[in-house]
């Protein structure tokens, strides 16, 4: 037993984690490219492999509403969605966080409409970055699996909901070799969920979701801000425990050849794999290049990021999402995390891959070359057509 090697898609990895977690309630509505997660999970329900109450609702707004109800009642609750489904949930996404409910949601990243598109970018989860949810990003199927286990424990430790993001199709539909834990180890790791206050506790009745006027709303928001400061210490306790089981070392970010690197590319999700591969190739040519992958995006691990990026010559931040009217989100936050340090590197932005536009080794090599030669602008676009094809 212990660690078992499997071949799985990112979607299957999420469903496998959900099977082992065996949540009390799952409420979901199908949407591409999330659908294979719930497809596989519905099969587990039908085969009696989980004891979950599986609620097949009529929309994502209802899915998140059912999750809020079930989590308020005291259940361990999970769901999954993508893009427009997440957008339809949005009202309740905020309520889940404000009511401090430890719901775990797999977000299979897909471009938000319009124009309508079903392929990968991060516009959906980035739109939720101020919602009060914790956000974990996953490079590959194994990280999807690990992040689900971390998310359940973290959510219940700090009473906050967690999104586990993976790239639509690129991760969700590609089969990879990955490792999982045996069922018993997972059950021991996540333990029993014992909520402090819950609606079905008839001995200690509570009112949930009451009107909150100008006399208390601000205090509740102040509490949410404070609660986020407890997440990173809790994250480290949890990943230290998981690390012993998986035989791995986890941080809020993953550094790759940063000790002696002069030029660094920062990214989220599957592109981190492409960047690391490019680093390997360029290292063979003797280039001092490295990569930083952001695993925990909310709360933003600015101290860990500054620790790795201070003193570098130049850093390119890759964003698979745009902010209309300002610089791209990850770039904005990385720059702000470095602002106070006198030894901060030059930091530039590359927007890439919107609506599933492919990103390859050639693109990332170009980014490193532009960093090294100093030809990168402050804001750059990777792979967009600037001219008509001849």
């Amino acid at each position, binding site marked *: 037993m212990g660690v078992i090697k499997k071949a799985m898609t990112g979607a299957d990895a999420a469903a496998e984690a959900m099977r082992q977690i065996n949540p009390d309630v799952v409420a979901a509505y199908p949407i591409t490219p999330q659908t294979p997660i719930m497809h596989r999970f519905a099969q587990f329900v039908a085969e009696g492999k989980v004891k979950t109450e599986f609620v097949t609702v009529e929309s994502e707004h209802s899915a998140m509403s059912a999750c809020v109800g079930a989590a308020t009642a005291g259940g361990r609750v999970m769901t999954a969605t993508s893009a427009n489904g997440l957008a339809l949930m949005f009202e309740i996404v905020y309520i889940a966080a*404000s009511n401090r*409910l430890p719901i775990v949601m797999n977000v299979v990243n897909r471009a938000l409409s319009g124009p309508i598109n079903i392929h990968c970018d991060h516009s959906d989860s980035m739109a939720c970055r101020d919602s009060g949810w914790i956000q974990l990003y996953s490079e590959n199927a194994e990280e999807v699996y690990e992040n689900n286990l971390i998310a359940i424990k973290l959510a219940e430790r700090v009473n906050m909901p967690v999104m586990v993001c993976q790239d639509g199709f690129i991760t969700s539909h590609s089969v990879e070799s990955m490792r999982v834990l045996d069922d018993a180890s997972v059950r021991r790791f996540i333990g029993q969920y014992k909520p402090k*206050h819950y609606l079905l506790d008839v001995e*200690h009745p*509570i*009112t*949930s979701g*009451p009107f909150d006027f100008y006399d208390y709303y601000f205090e509740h928001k102040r509490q949410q801000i404070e609660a986020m400061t407890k997440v990173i210490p809790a994250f480290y306790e949890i990943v230290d425990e998981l690390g012993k089981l998986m035989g791995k070392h986890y941080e809020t970010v993953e550094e790759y050849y940063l000790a002696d690197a002069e030029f660094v590319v920062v990214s989220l999700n599957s592109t981190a794999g492409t960047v690391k591969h490019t680093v390997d190739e360029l290292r063979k040519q003797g280039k001092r290049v490295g990569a930083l992958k952001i695993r925990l995006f909310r709360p933003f691990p600015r101290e860990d990021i500054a620790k790795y990026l201070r003193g570098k010559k130049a850093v390119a931040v890759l964003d698979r999402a745009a902010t209309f009217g300002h610089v791209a989100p990850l770039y904005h936050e990385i720059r702000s995390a470095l602002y106070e340090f006198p030894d901060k590197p030059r930091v530039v932005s590359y927007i890439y891959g919107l609506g599933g536009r492919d990103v390859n080794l050639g693109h990332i090599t170009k980014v490193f070359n532009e960093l090294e030669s100093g030809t990168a602008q402050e804001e750059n676009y990777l792979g967009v057509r600037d001219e008509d094809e001849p």
Partner: protein
Amino acid sequence: MKKKSWKSIPEGGIITTPGNSLKFKTGDWKTHYPEWNKEKCIQCLRCHFLCPEGAIKVKNGKVVGIDLDYCKGCGICADECPVKAIVMKKVGENGSD
């Protein structure tokens, strides 16, 4: 009721003390309050039946006063009184009635 800080209230906006709405005075947001003139009043009880908050206090079939803890200052009573025994006054600058 003394207000608590963010450090001492339950998380997530839940209420852990059922029935505590009794302690919540709903009338603290009015800008005008009604003043009742006992001498002018002909005890027709119109104000009592029309007040949306039940704030016109009646004992033994007679108006005896107005409960300003729950009165929201809408002015319906003053508008409906046939003899102008109720007039609306501006709430003081310190927020008192």
